[in-house]
């Protein structure tokens, strides 16, 4: 999958309360959560985002609670990919499970700046920075995870597998 969009840079340790504050957890609606994405970081943050834009985070992105509303809010805002130095463990799982692509790039995240135009090739594991002409490499999304993402997250993935009658032995 190739995704082209603008980078929106955020800092280290962006927690799930910053991504979607607890007062919005009364719904699981993508549009409502998306409209309040990063509201705990900066009110009105989401207004800068256009469809297919990309979040570039620092260390430990998504730390805090296990709320699945956090990746939903990011997806609901139209953001299909988060690139970060590292991710908090439960968020990493929840991200893929909800259908959000997460790319871990370590210190190379510093080569991606706010407002840069990025072209992300998830299969090849390359983030091309069109603005600077530099490329950042990351581990490609493995086929099993790509399958999960292609299905639109874990619920749809399991649904599809059940329809195909595939059960584990």
């Amino acid at each position: 999958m190739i995704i082209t969009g603008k980078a929106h840079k955020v800092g280290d340790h962006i927690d799930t309360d910053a991504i979607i504050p607890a007062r919005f957890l009364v719904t699981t609606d993508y549009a409502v959560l998306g409209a309040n994405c990063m509201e705990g970081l900066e009110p009105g943050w989401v207004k800068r985002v256009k469809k297919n834009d990309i979040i570039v985070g620092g260390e430990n992105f998504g730390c805090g609670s296990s709320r699945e509303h956090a990746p939903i809010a990011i997806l609901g805002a139209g953001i299909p990919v988060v690139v970060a130095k590292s991710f908090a463990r439960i968020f990493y799982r929840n991200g893929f499970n909800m259908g959000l692509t997460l790319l871990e790039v370590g210190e190379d995240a510093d080569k991606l700046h706010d407002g840069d135009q990025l072209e992300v090739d998830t299969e090849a594991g390359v983030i091309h920075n069109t603005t600077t002409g530099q490329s950042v490499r990351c581990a490609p999304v493995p086929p099993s995870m790509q399958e999960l993402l292609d299905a639109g997250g874990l619920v749809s993935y399991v649904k599809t597998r059940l329809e195909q009658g595939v059960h584990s032995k």
Partner: protein
Amino acid sequence: MPNTLAEKILQAHTDDDASEAGRIVRCRVSLVLANDITAPLAIKSFRAMGAKRVFDRDRVALVCDHFTPNKDIDSAEQVRLVREFAQEMGVTHYFEGGDVGVEHALLPELGLVGPGDVVVGADSHTCTYGGLGAFATGMGSTDIAAAMVLGETWFKVPPTIRVEMSGTLSPFVGAKDLILAVIGRTGVSGALYKALEFGGPLTSALSVEGRMTMANMAIEAGGKAGLFPSDAKTVAYCKAAGRHAETLDADPGATYERVLMLDATGMEPQVACPHLPDNVKPVGELKGLRLDQTVIGSCTNGRIEDLREAAAVLKGRKVKKNLRCVVLPATPNIWRQALKEGLLEIFMESGCIVGPPTCGPCLGGHMGILAKGERSLATTNRNFKGRMGSLESEVYLCNPAVAAAGAVAGEIIHPAAL
């Protein structure tokens, strides 16, 4: 290539290559677990997936242990929902009434988890089973729903921090003190995304129960799993639980991210102070801190040997006037055993409150909630702000002997100084 315990166990459950940290593997799971708080959400996802049955009705465990006996109408409704799901799916291992125990004490005792297993649970203390040599970890409810349906899940193979334990334990010092000392050194995120693997000469001296106490708190260091080797003690424990088990250990020469050396010689009982489990101090430094409550129980320290340690301190002594000492044996079997051994008699004689098996006060659920300004010493696992009640209360974590001594003295004290 020599492998860590985590790599070895995951490899045995996957067709992918699990030989290196960072790889993503799809694994078959041995057991899937949820409780009265997390199962309702998982059931919601299960329905959304269009699932009609669980992958194996003998390998799903639903344990209603957190707010049971149901503390109010809302918790009763949650349990009702879980019960109806269990009945509809024909789930064998559903527990709610007189057969329920704190999940992480109950399942090992019933032989439902053992060495080499991959266990996933919608509860962060699922890592407890690492004490038996299982790769066990907590997850979100949707993950658990998928595992209930498919019998598999995905993992990123974690790097491992090896904890080498040596030396001899002083009186009134045990597994809880060792793990608090580890967390004090790693910090609450020091093992983020990683496995903790416990080994070294002191390992074989620890009981299987003690190992579970340690593995239980791996999550308090941010860990994904806490693993012990399976040895003759593990095999005997499993046999008593009606389950065949084999020994299992990491390969010599396996690759570790780092090795943490822990020498127990001369170690004092450890206490984790508010409001994080890594704020650890030796008991002596906290002497004289006034207490309103002590709790002896939970998935960390509610097992029979914990109750024996507490009873040994309480025998012939009285709990301080106006202090609540709440004793919650973690399972019905432990409760019966404590009755048989006369431990409950000792607790009652000394003025303790003996309650049913439940998570209850550990998470501020019920059966021992703190008021503003109150302070509890507890054998539980978390001391976050407001964890046991009021946001203005405090929780100190310790081993069962220290908790019992605190109940007698009405303040934090080394049991030997009573």
